[in-house]
C-alpha cells in the first residue's frame, strides 16, 4: 500500500449505511409495512382460540411470526431494491462514487443500512408480540392457574432467538437482492427476481431431499449444486420449537447464525464483484 492509497474505511461504510437507513425510514413504504405488521400482530389477540390454554399463546406467537415473515420479506426485497435504484435513477450515485470511496463501501453500506431498517422492523414486531404474549399469559395464569403450576410456559428467550434468526434470514435475502440489483437495469426486475429467489430459498430443502433419488448424475449434480447455491430458509423457522421440550438449542442457534453470516458475505462479495465494473 502506497502512502497515497485510499484504504477501505469503516467510517465511510457507516456513513453510507446511516444515510441509507435515514432514507428508508423516511419512506412511506417502511412506515406502511411496519404499521401493517404491528396491526396484524396486535390483532392476533382478537382471533385467538378461546380455550384459555397454551394453544392460545401458541396461536398468538404463530400469528405474530407469520406477520413478521410475510411483511419482513416484502419489506426486505422492496427496500433493498428501492434504496439501491434510487441512487442510480436519481443519479446521487454519480456524485457519491465520484468521491474517493470504494464500490465495496457503497454496496456494503447499502446492505448495512437496509439490515438496520429490517432490524428495527423485527425488533418492533417481536417486541410487541412478546409484550402481548407476556400480558396474555399473565391473564391466563390468573384465570387458569392449574395449567401454569410450573410458572410461565413460554420461553421468551427462545422467542427473541427466533426473531434474531428471522432478521438474519432477511439479511441473507437482502444480500441476494443486492446481488441481483448490482447487474439488473430496473427496480421492477430486481423486485420480481427477488421474490422468485425468496420462493426458491424456501423450497430449497425439497431439492436437497430429492437429489439422492435422482438417477441421472448430471441432474443430480445440478440439483445438488442448486441446493448449495441457494440458502435453505427453512432452517431459520424454529418457531415450532418454542415451548416444546428443551426449547431452542443455543448450539443450533449459533450454527444457523454462522450459516447466515457466511451466505451474507458470499452474496455481498458477489454483489461487490458485479457492481465493481458497472458503468454508472
Amino acid at each position, binding site marked *: 500500500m502506497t502512502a*497515497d*492509497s*485510499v484504504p477501505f*474505511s469503516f*467510517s*465511510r461504510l457507516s*456513513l*453510507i449505511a446511516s*444515510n441509507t437507513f*435515514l*432514507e428508508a425510514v*423516511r419512506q412511506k413504504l417502511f412506515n406502511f409495512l411496519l404499521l401493517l405488521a404491528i396491526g396484524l400482530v396486535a390483532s392476533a389477540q382478537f382471533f385467538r382460540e378461546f380455550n384459555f390454554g397454551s394453544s392460545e399463546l401458541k396461536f398468538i406467537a404463530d400469528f405474530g411470526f407469520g406477520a413478521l415473515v410475510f411483511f419482513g420479506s416484502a419489506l426486505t426485497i422492496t427496500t433493498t431494491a428501492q434504496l439501491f435504484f434510487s441512487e442510480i435513477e*436519481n*443519479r*446521487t450515485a*454519480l*456524485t*457519491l*462514487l*465520484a*468521491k*474517493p*470511496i*470504494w464500490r465495496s463501501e457503497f454496496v456494503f453500506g447499502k446492505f448495512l443500512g437496509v439490515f438496520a431498517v429490517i432490524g428495527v422492523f423485527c425488533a418492533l414486531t417481536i417486541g410487541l408480540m412478546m409484550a402481548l404474549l407476556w400480558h396474555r399469559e399473565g391473564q391466563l395464569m390468573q384465570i387458569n392457574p392449574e395449567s401454569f403450576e410450573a410458572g410461565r410456559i413460554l420461553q421468551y428467550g427462545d422467542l427473541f432467538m427466533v426473531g434474531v434468526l428471522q432478521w438474519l434470514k432477511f439479511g441473507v435475502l437482502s444480500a441476494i437482492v443486492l446481488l441481483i440489483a448490482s447487474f439488473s437495469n430496473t427496480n421492477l426486475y430486481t423486485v420480481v427476481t427477488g421474490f422468485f429467489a425468496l420462493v426458491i430459498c424456501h423450497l430449497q430443502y425439497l431439492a436437497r431431499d430429492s437429489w439422492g433419488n435422482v438417477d441421472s448424475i448430471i441432474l443430480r449434480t445440478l440439483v445438488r449444486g442448486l441446493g448449495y447455491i441457494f440458502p435453505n430458509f427453512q432452517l431459520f423457522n424454529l418457531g415450532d420449537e418454542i415451548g416444546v421440550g428443551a426449547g431452542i438449542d443455543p448450539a443450533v442457534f449459533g450454527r444457523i447464525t454462522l450459516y447466515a453470516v457466511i451466505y451474507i458475505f458470499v452474496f455481498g462479495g458477489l454483489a461487490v464483484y458485479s457492481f465493481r*465494473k458497472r*458503468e*454508472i
Partner: protein
Amino acid sequence: MTTPVPAISIKGLTKDFAITLRGVKLRAVDDLTLTVEQGQVYGLLGPNGSGKSTTIKVILGLLEATAGEVRVFGVPSHRVESRRNVGYLPEAPYFYRYLSGFELVRFYARVCGVPRAHLEARVKEVVDWVGLSKAADRRVGTYSKGMLQRIGLAQALVHDPKLIILDEPTAGVDPVGSAEMCELILKLKHQGKTVLITSHLLAQIEDVCDQVAILDHGKLIVNGGLLELVGQRDRQALIVDPLSAEDIEALKGWLSTRGHALNAIEQPRSRLDQLFLSKISRPGQNGSQGGVGSNVVPEATPATKTPFNQA
C-alpha cells in the same frame, strides 16, 4: 525546475458502449488526446452526444475506458486515489432530498475525509461562499435549480480539491444563476484551481475559459487557447465617440496614406445577458437571500487548511 504534472492527461481515449446483445457498439469517444494543465480553466465543448459527459465519467472512474489512458494528477483514473483531489458537480444534480443543505455538504465532507475538528467550520465556509447560508437549513428537496447547482458546487469544494469538474453547471439555470456560477468559476480560477467545465452556453465559456476543446461525434476537432482560436490577430477595433460622415471620410483618407483600410463601421452593442442582469434585482444586492458570497474564500482557511485530501 520540474514541470508540474498535468491535472488531467488523456491519451488515446476510446470508449465504446454495447448497444445490442449481438455486440454492436456505439463509439462515444474516439481516440481522444488532450491535456489540462494545473491552474487552467478548460472548456470542453460539443453538441449533445459528442462525448463530453462520457469523457468526464471516465476521468472520474465512473466508466472504464475501452482503450487509452486517463490520468488525474498522474494517477490512473480507475484508481480510487485519483479522485482524492477532485470535486465534481454533475449535470442537473439531484441530491438526497430529505437532507438539509448543511446536512448534505456535511455528509460529503465526511465521505471525503474532512477531519471532524474542522468539519463544521469548513461546511459553513463553503455554504457561505456559494451564497446559500440562509437556505442551508432547508431540505434540499425544496431548492430551485439554481440553488441545487450552488449546493452542488459547495459539496464539490468542501474537501478543498485542486481540480473541479463542472458538467453543464448552468443547464436549466436562469441568467442570474448562470452569471453567479460564472463569478464563482472566476474566483476559483483566481485561487489557482484547475476547472474543467462543459457547457452549451458558449458565451459563458468564452468569459471564463483559458483553453477550449471541441468534440464532435467523440472526436477532438479543435483544441487550443481561447485567444488563439477566436481572436483575430490581424485586425483591431477602435471604439470612438460618434463621427460625422466628413470625419469618417477624413479618417479613411488618413488610414489609406498609411497603408491601412477601414473595413467596417459598426454600432457597438452590449450583450443581452448584460442588459438583463443590469435591469433586474439580483439576489444578494438588496440584502435578501442568495448571491454568491464574496468575502469568504472556498480555499480552506488557515484554521481549516489541513491536508483533507492527503489524509
